[in-house]
């Protein structure tokens, strides 16, 4: 069965109308969702206040389990943030134009995941009130942070990534903000007037816009890879068996893209359903996303197995024991569930019937993300359970405080996202128009020929740009 990614003959006015409509008049369901998210966030806030006052004890962290869910969830959210980069930057560079209707919310996801992830290293500090000490500010005592620490690398990388991805999101949104400006009234108009930075669709603006968008996409890809490599360095740079693994950087990057893609599927389906975006977020696009997810899932599965195999084949007993402990130790049930969710479940994506069935895909995408969250937990914890020092072997189960904060982080993300969809266009209007425009031209032979004739010297196909497959 083949259908088009998008109806090329859709009226541009309808595009504006549909998207702008989605930003207005929140319904009851929206407020219920907001309330639920606020409730979740308040759980986390209460837990954090308690932890702030009492100490890290009630979270059940202990010797040797100095890290647990906080760091695992941190890695999870950082991973989630890679979706936007993948969909937006990579697909932009390779010219896959089907990204256009869905990249906006993916990029928003990137930014909000980072805003969520960034909280965790702060929450997990024993002395939160001194967190600014990790910043490289000039102190009159000549004290700097320790640039050797992967945690400082994290701080640098996350700052860079957050800045860049937020800018990428914002710049990509400027033409749309101008549309909003032109159609809004009241406070919204004021807001969009400021945010659209005086965009008026000049050819000059478009020209530079195209360049900056491309350049930022180029920077964002290596940046995203470096960010998750650095996050993996928190583990890989340590000396601990089960953490000190050479293949961790690509493994983490693959895992990040994986969970990001899965989350895109989830949000895709939610947005499509609630905002009636059936004409933009079409089944063929979902299918493409699913295929992409499946490919990444297979990469991840391969890297997982490679990690096991290389540890198994090596002769480092401590690492080998750490590996065996994952399969058989106290956390083994979670490990097996992780393997199922991460390796077996994605095969559901391989079947067209399932790919086209939204409820199935919704559940499946959630399963994949549960698997990816478990993966992070299963990286952090089993190593702490058993490492070099037998006297310090210990099994620990996270306390209510940790669970509350992890739970709340989903609410926090949800809240940010809910605010986003009502304030900003969650589908890129101008790019959908581009997509429609180019497809109409290139898919109709007559138009294309006519167009080419009008072009002067060079072959237009050589032009870098948004025209695509």
């Amino acid at each position, binding site marked *: 069965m083949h259908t088009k990614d998008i109806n090329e003959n859709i009226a541009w006015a309808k595009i504006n109308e549909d998207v702008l409509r989605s930003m207005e008049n929140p319904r009851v369901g929206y407020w219920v969702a907001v309330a639920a998210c606020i409730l979740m966030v308040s759980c986390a806030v209460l837990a954090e206040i308690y932890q702030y006052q*009492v*100490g*890290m*004890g009630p979270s*059940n*962290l*202990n*010797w*040797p*389990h*100095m*890290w647990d869910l906080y760091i695992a969830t941190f890695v999870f959210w950082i991973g989630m943030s890679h979706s936007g980069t993948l969909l937006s930057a990579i697909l932009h560079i390779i010219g896959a134009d089907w990204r256009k209707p869905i990249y906006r919310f993916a990029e928003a996801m990137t930014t909000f995941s980072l805003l969520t992830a960034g909280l965790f*290293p702060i929450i*997990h*500090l*024993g*002395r*939160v009130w*001194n*967190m600014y*000490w*990790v910043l490289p500010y*000039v102190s009159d005592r*000549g*004290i*700097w*942070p*320790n640039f*050797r*620490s*992967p*945690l*400082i690398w994290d*701080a640098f990388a996350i700052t860079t990534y957050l800045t860049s991805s937020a800018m990428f999101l914002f710049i990509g949104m400027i033409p749309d903000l101008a549309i909003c400006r032109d159609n809004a009234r009241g406070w919204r108009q004021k807001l969009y007037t400021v945010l659209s930075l005086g965009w008026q669709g000049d050819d000059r603006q478009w020209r530079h816009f195209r360049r900056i968008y491309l350049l930022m996409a180029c920077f964002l890809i290596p940046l995203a890879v470096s960010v998750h490599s650095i996050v993996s360095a*928190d583990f890989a*740079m*340590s*000396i*601990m068996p089960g953490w000190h693994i050479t293949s961790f950087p690509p493994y983490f990057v693959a895992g990040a893209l994986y969970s990001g893609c899965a989350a895109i599927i989830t949000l895709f389906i939610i947005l499509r359903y609630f905002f009636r975006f059936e004409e933009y977020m079409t089944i063929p696009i979902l299918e493409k996303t699913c295929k992409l997810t499946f490919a990444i899932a297979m990469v991840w599965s391969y890297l997982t197995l490679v990690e096991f195999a290389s540890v198994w084949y090596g002769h480092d007993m401590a690492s080998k024991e750490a590996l065996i402990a994952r399969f058989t130790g106290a956390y083994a049930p979670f490990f097996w569930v992780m393997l199922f969710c991460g390796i077996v479940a994605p095969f559901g994506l391989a079947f067209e019937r399932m790919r086209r069935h939204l409820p199935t895909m919704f559940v499946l995408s959630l399963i994949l993300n549960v698997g990816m969250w478990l993966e992070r937990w299963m990286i952090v914890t089993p190593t*702490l359970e058993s*490492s*070099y*020092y*037998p*006297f*310090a072997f*210990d099994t*620990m189960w996270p306390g209510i405080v940790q669970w509350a904060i992890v739970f709340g982080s989903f609410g926090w993300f949800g809240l940010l996202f809910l605010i986003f969809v009502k304030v900003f266009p969650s589908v890129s209007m101008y790019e959908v128009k581009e997509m429609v425009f180019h497809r109409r031209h290139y898919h109709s032979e007559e138009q294309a020929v006519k167009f080419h004739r009008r072009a002067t010297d060079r072959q237009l196909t050589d032009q870098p740009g948004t025209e695509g497959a």
Partner: protein
Amino acid sequence: MSLKNVLENWSDYRKTHEQGGHHEYEHMWTLAIDLNKCTGCNACSVACYAENNLATVGKEKLHKGQGMHWLRMERYWDEPQMGGDDAEYHERGASFLPMMCQHCNAATCEPVCPVAATYHTPDGLNAQVYNRCIGSRYCSNNCPYRLRYFNFYSYYDTSWPEPLNQQLNPDISVRDKGVMEKCTFCVQRIRTGKDQAASEGRELRDGDVVTACAQSCPTQAIVFGDMLDEESEAAKLWAKQQVELGPYEQKKDKEGSELRGYRVLEALNTDPCVMYLDRVREA
């Protein structure tokens, strides 16, 4: 923060531990622990509690692994594959291992601290700066010996009810919640010893500084001393056992290959400053 400084001293700043490092050490404090003499009596551990204001956290928290035993006396039973046997009883008794911070010269805990709260002093100590610590706990995670302990709670009110708090050693602080702590080689005693020597106008001598654990050990199994002072008992013990600071594989000569001196998990190249001498059993 000057570029000139960087350029002029470039090669100096690029020296790693293997090349002697940038710092000149004034002392290199070490321990030599003879497991042939150690009886596992725990006196050292309690002495450490007394000297270093270690919190007693109580049954629940200690059971949860939130205790503060800077010096822990480990007890291991022989394994069949390690020369033990499958006999009905532990005929060769137990192996005891008093484990305190190993003050590694290439400490894995140091580079991972985001705020440089743990560093190497010119005395060769792996120091923990409580004031600077923000509690990321990475150091403890990256310590292969698991010798760093975290203040999961503020223990001051619960651990030292009046008048127990009067016993607290005023020479060192009581750590508050959110701070990592660990054995300091009784740095306050080192300070006192140095001050004493300085006021007497002389160099520090072997024996001027003794850690609490070494002092209380009934069998004198723990010997504390300065490796840079060749006349110190500890340095002599290291030399006698042909154990050197620096290499991760000791170059023992043919006769020395039977010597008992070793450092725990030496192959990880952490270069610990604590030498152990193996347990001895008749058969």
